[in-house]
């Protein structure tokens, strides 16, 4: 089978799994992970173990290969999950998502920063469990949320993004939660060291934290035991955006050193796009 035919076969299988996921999410998503794992193993292309070792030099070649296969699985599972949410909404996903006991004890105003790691699309049901009104800023809409969750897209030009930013500031000012990705840069960015590379983080969350005088709490979701475990990081506070960005990048680095297979391909690509920083 040539490469193009193989790709088409995998895509057809993923498409079938996305349909199945609406009715049987747990087995469909687990199968998608296995499929993606094999796809990476067979293609030996992206990510390659050598690329993984560039960021995680302490891993042996075989451990890096397992991480690469797992990232293939993560991506396939996330693609199927996103397709399932697009077609069927959050309904099938809600039972899979487990939030920690301290989740309901969070007190707004609070900024929750997400990253393109782990089961990022599975955070939707978690936002519904936050004890207060929630405004999520994201690039594009996967589903229509129910109140008190509201989603505003960050697509568009600077003025449209300013409108989203203004809504977020108002939501924090009125004692709500704001959720947004930290590691995507639709506007201006801040650079911080991460895994021996330079990572550009979006400036928006740090400017929001500074202007609203609220901490930023890292929020991630991991695929675990056939479902999704949502985890919170320690609050990150500060008055200077560059200091907040550096602390956030350090948090992400610790997370990824602990769970390298949770690294999303987009984030991996962006980390590899920068030359190594000195001293590592």
């Amino acid at each position, binding site marked *: 089978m040539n490469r193009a035919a193989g790709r088409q076969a995998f895509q057809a299988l993923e498409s079938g799994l996305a349909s199945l996921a609406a009715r049987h999410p747990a087995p469909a998503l687990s199968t998608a992970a296995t499929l993606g794992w094999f796809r990476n193993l067979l293609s030996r292309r992206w990510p390659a173990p050598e690329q993984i070792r560039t960021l995680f030099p302490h891993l042996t070649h075989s451990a890096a290969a397992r991480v690469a296969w797992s990232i293939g699985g993560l991506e396939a599972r996330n693609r199927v999950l996103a397709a399932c949410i697009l077609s069927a909404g959050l309904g099938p996903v809600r039972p899979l998502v487990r939030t920690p006991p301290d989740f309901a004890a969070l007190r707004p105003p609070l900024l929750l920063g997400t990253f393109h790691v782990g089961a990022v699309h599975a955070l939707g049901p978690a936002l519904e469990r936050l004890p207060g009104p929630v405004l999520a800023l994201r690039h594009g809409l996967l589903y229509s949320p129910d109140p008190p969750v509201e989603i505003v897209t960050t697509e568009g*030009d600077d003025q449209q993004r*300013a409108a*989203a930013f203004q809504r977020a500031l108002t939501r924090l000012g009125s004692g709500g939660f704001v959720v947004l990705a930290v590691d995507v840069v639709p506007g201006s960015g801040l650079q911080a060291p991460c895994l021996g590379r330079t990572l550009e983080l979006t400036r928006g969350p740090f400017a929001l934290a500074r202007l609203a005088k609220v901490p930023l709490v890292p929020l991630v979701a991991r695929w675990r035991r056939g479902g999704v475990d949502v985890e919170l990081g320690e609050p990150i506070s500060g008055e200077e955006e560059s200091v907040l960005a550096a602390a956030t990048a350090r948090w992400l680095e610790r997370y990824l050193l602990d769970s390298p297979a949770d690294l999303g391909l987009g984030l991996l690509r962006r980390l590899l796009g920068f030359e190594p920083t000195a001293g590592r």
Partner: protein
Amino acid sequence: MSAAPSIDETVRELLRSRAPLARDRAALPDELRLGAGGLGLDSIALVELLLDCEQRFGIPRPVELLEGEPLTVGRLVAHVRAAAGA
């Protein structure tokens, strides 16, 4: 005794302090855009400018001002005038 600066002058003064591209311009005409194609303020700077106006004039910063038509010097001045009841 000198007269207090008008809303027009004060908004333009705030613009000059917030937008580097405004500092070297002799005039800031009403039709000049604050974002791309004009003074080049990014999303965060646009909101910070509205915060400046809120603080200076004690007026709200409605999101509607950032939706729809491009925000210009004239639109911002008109908003401040209307909100301040001048």
